[in-house]
């Protein structure tokens, strides 16, 4: 629960993808986008963890909780990659990796 409260800031340590959806025109954009995000996440076997900060149309999809063998996780990664790459609603997606940042 803690991980998915409100707009997401961090995945729970598993695989995660940042996804930018095509924005449907018209009313209730936010609603449509959220619904669509859930559908795309589900299709990719992931969980929609919410919008990324203030960036409209940008969502974080995370791996459903639970421990997996490496092989299974890899299979899941490939499946998710394939679905997100093909999905018509996805404008852009990128698997989240740890950034190396240093204090100056």
């Amino acid at each position, binding site marked *: *629960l803690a991980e998915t*409260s409100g707009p997401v*800031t961090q995945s729970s*340590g598993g695989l*995660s993808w940042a996804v930018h959806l095509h924005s449907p025109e018209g009313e209730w954009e936010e609603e449509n986008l959220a619904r669509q995000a859930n559908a795309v996440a589900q299709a990719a076997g992931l969980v929609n963890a919410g919008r*990324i*900060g203030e960036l409209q149309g940008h969502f974080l999809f995370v791996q459903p909780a639970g421990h997996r063998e490496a092989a299974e996780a890899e299979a899941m990664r490939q499946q998710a990659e394939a679905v997100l790459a093909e999905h018509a609603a996805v404008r852009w997606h990128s698997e*989240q990796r740890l*950034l190396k940042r240093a204090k100056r």
Partner: protein
Amino acid sequence: SIHFNDPKFPQQWHLNNRRSPGRDINVTGVWERNVTGRGVTVVVVDDGVEHTIQDIAPNYCPEGSYDLNSNDPDPMPHPDTENGNHHGTRCAGEIAAVPNNSFCAVGVAYGSRIAGIRVLDGPLTDSMEAVAFNKHYQINDIYSCSWGPDDDGKTVDGPHQLGKAALQHGVMAGRQGFGSIFVVASGNGGQHNDNCNYDGYANSIYTVTIGAVDEEGRMPFYAEECASMLAVTFSGGDKMLRSIVTTDWDLQKGTGCTEGHTGTSAAAPLAAGMIALMLQVRPCLTWRDVQHIIVFTATQYEDRRADWLTNEAGFSHSHQHGFGLLNAWRLVNAAKIWTSVPYLASYVSPVLKENKAIPQSPRSLEVLWNVSRMDLDMSGLKTLEHVAVTVSISHPRRGSLELTLFCPSGMMSLIGAPRSMDSDPNGFNDWTFSTVRCWGERARGIYRLVVRDVGDEPLQVGVLQRWQLTLYGSVWSPIDIRDRQRLLEGAMSGKYLHDGFALPCPPGLKIPEEDGYVLTPNTLKMLVLVGCFTVFWTVYYMLELYLSQRNMASSPGCRSGPCHWPPQSRRPREEGTELESVPLCNSKAADSTEMENGGPSRTSERRTPDLLHEGDWSLAQNKRALDGPHQHPPPDLLQGKEDQIC
């Protein structure tokens, strides 16, 4: 005339240098005129801010803060094994340490509010960084970031897609539409020949890139050169020179005060503090106004090693010091009279496919692109601000490459400096370099990109595959720029720096922060707990009710006829509530109560229904158990029920 009782204020040479007059940020005159950053919020994006410390607490802004590492609203730093998470607190102290509290030090903008976003103390991803850059962006005016990719002289990195989108969103929608101000440190890779054009945060057009100089005004050993550096301010130098005195955390070995803050980390917050002073006198400055004022007011000064070059617009820039030293007096007086620059105009060339070999030094590959008047008609772009070049180059040792850009005026910018440590064999793949050295110059004309291979490989091995030129600027003409320069010089006397003078300032847009009501994990956990507790007791109570009903149905008194109920009001009641409302006190108690009330008891009937049998007795027992220690004598089930419970 400024006197603070803060014990370390006299050592804060960067604020007021008594030992070498002039070697400071020239801020006391601004303070004397009550310009202290009031009404402005600066957020330190770092490893946390110990906001409980005396020097910070009064200025702390919880509404602008957040902890992205723990996902809760409190950015308090967490002590770690290396005693390392004091960085953010030190930066915060430089900006807004409270004066005259007899504690430690004073901040540049000691009247401003300081917030913290804790993001560096744990795994960091693009999405977290994007959240950080826009967190509470209608409350936080300035984001001070004293961090970046490794300064190891071989890293080429910066904000990725999400981070770039967040920076762009911040300058478009942040701060009521005037644009968040992102201040970044240029980097500490000096010893590794690093250059901040290999750092996408430093060479972004959306950030104010600040370098460091020591107390003698020289480029310290750790500082990096960079064509996209806007300006420098003070920080520590080598061992013989003083570092920055600021507030410190008091966790672990911390004492709440330090005299050892240094690096470009210490310079960026000072710049953020000075920008806060500017925003107090003129809140409606846009993110580009702030950059322009820095360019127009930073001061060139004598430094033999600095390659100062004056461009066609009269601005002097050096790869070591940017447009020069930040000067709080000049910045604030310029801000006071500044009217907004025209909208940002840009021009993007086609992708220029070259696929040309890069010869070994001293020969070089030169490619040109002519930007014609017609090319610029659409955007109206006349004079330059940032010039960016995106290149793709293959080369087995990336650090051997040197890229130089010449603007139409002939102004040279070393945008890709050779790096002896960088042996990466992958070359550049659409990496964007930028320069600010042509600021204010005419945009039209021929741009020349010169690529050299300064490595010692025998054969020429590098290939320039493609490049693209992007110009950012405005419709300002060179004359407009000269006029503005004159106007500013006329304000440097301070004659406008009083409350009686104020140019009109639009209020900005009401932009709702998108993130809805966010339940913090603690709140969520509490709700879950309460929910579980409620469910448990409901189930228990239903069970209790059911069992007592069942017992009642099976007890003899009821089997042989209607149950004797105490005379109650005739109103029909639901079955269940009778039991709930049945008093557990016996008739005597009830009688005595009535006697106290003066009225004879109308009935001697037992007020306690004869349902206190085995099962119900447990109810009585429970009642007694709840009543605690004073235990009634164990009731005899058959006799004297009225002596039972009360």
